């Protein structure tokens, strides 16, 4: 796939304070179509805040986030208004949460969870919706026989895979992921990461991935942004930032990881 020339998402000068704490301090990032951008840093570095600001879930005190939609139009994420933002969130965008319970409807079956986005964009044929849900369960390695089970009956890893199916079923162009492997066993993490890697490259989705897991970033991301104290301290090609880190904080981050 040829890279497009224009970023799909472009943030300039994002600042956001919570009282005296500068959660975001003049942050600028770009994300290109089909590209996976990892945002790494320790807890409190501002990486999750950045993700939420990029996705329009949190309004920055200053700065601008521009999204180029499927028709090539540039949209200001923070001034488009809630109806437009919500429409985007259920069509061209997706969000995978760290805690699957925040991203799933726990009282609704697996099939209903996957089908919701289809129905939200107007699908009204039960048989088609169910068939598509079953296909996606299979794709995320959940036995389609479990289509009528609720997420509460699933393991943590399965729930997270279900959340991914639910998010990707409408083939969004841009997906935000907040620690998608957080809180899972290491063996489960590997499987999930590989699944995400495969789906993202097959579907050509742009992904903004927040993680504190350097190995996950290396496996998934084309580019890396390192955050600390609300600032971007280093960014670049993933393997270069990890193998030839320049900033003291990045060196510390990389050196504290075993065989990333």
């Amino acid at each position: 796939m040829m890279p497009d020339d224009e970023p799909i998402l472009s943030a300039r000068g994002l600042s956001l304070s919570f009282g005296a704490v500068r959660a975001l301090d003049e942050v600028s990032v770009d994300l290109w179509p089909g590209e996976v951008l990892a945002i790494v840093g320790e807890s409190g570095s501002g990486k999750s805040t950045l993700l939420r600001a990029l996705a329009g879930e949190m309004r920055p005190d200053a700065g601008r986030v521009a999204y180029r939609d499927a028709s090539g139009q540039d949209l200001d994420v923070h001034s488009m208004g809630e109806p437009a933002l919500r429409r985007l969130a259920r069509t061209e965008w997706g969000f995978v949460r760290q805690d699957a319970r925040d991203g799933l409807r726990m009282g609704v079956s697996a099939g209903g969870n996957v089908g919701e986005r289809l129905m939200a964009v107007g699908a009204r044929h039960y048989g088609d919706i169910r068939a598509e849900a079953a296909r996606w369960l299979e794709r995320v390695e959940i036995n389609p026989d479990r289509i009528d089970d609720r997420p509460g009956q699933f393991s943590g890893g399965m729930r997270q895979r279900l959340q991914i199916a639910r998010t990707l079923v409408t083939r969004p162009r841009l997906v935000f992921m907040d620690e998608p492997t957080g809180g899972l066993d290491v063996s489960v993490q590997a499987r999930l990461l590989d699944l995400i890697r495969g789906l993202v490259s097959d579907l050509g989705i742009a992904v903004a991935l927040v993680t504190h897991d350097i190995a996950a970033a290396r496996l998934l991301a084309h580019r890396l942004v390192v955050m600390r104290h609300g600032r971007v301290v280093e960014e670049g090609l993933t393997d270069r930032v990890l193998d030839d880190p320049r900033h003291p904080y990045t060196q510390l981050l990389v050196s504290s990881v075993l065989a990333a």
Partner: protein
Amino acid sequence: MTEWVLKAEGLSKGFTLHLQGGVCIPVLRDAGLVVKAGECVALSGPSGAGKSTLMRLLQGNYGADSGAILVRQADGGVADLATASPRAINALRRETIGHVSQFLRVIPRVPALEVVAAPLIARGMPREEALARAQALLRRLNLPDRLHGLPPATFSGGEQQRVNLARGFVADFPLMLLDEPTASLDAANREVVIALIAEAKARGAALVGIFHDLEVRERVADRVVEVAPLREAA
């Protein structure tokens, strides 16, 4: 006169270790290298002289402190790896620069065949065709068919090395970087690699390699470039 594919000039590279009190370790100063189409250049020098650092710079894995790394792409355009954007480097790696490292970076659960076919698929080749080419090359490197469908994580060093070689050679890159490509191979497979290098040269690829096996180096390298260690710290 054959055109160069790789022209590196004035390359300097050092490492500032902030965790060790900011000590600076210079590794390369004013290094350069020109490789023409159809040519294989071997880097030599004592261990620690900076051969691996130079290879990593040529691959974009390390960032140069100064200098230029000009790479001629298949379409004739020239890119400077030393200043290229991350996206441009990713594009160069997809289309122009092939790389065989000493160790395979294993991706969990991805079968060997897919690992090898990935560079072709990334370029847009139909999946079936890419897998067929990958399979042919793995067979040529004597990797048993029963291993093709398995993830290489559990393979022996030699088997992993052959997967790595296949991945590097499958996509006919104009520029190939080979870091100890025959290190853990038996004699028969070493011959296959020598043949692959010869074929790459014949199709006009430029190759840069580190070969500790002097016999292999003798047979594949057109020139040997010495990388000398820097005497004094900066």
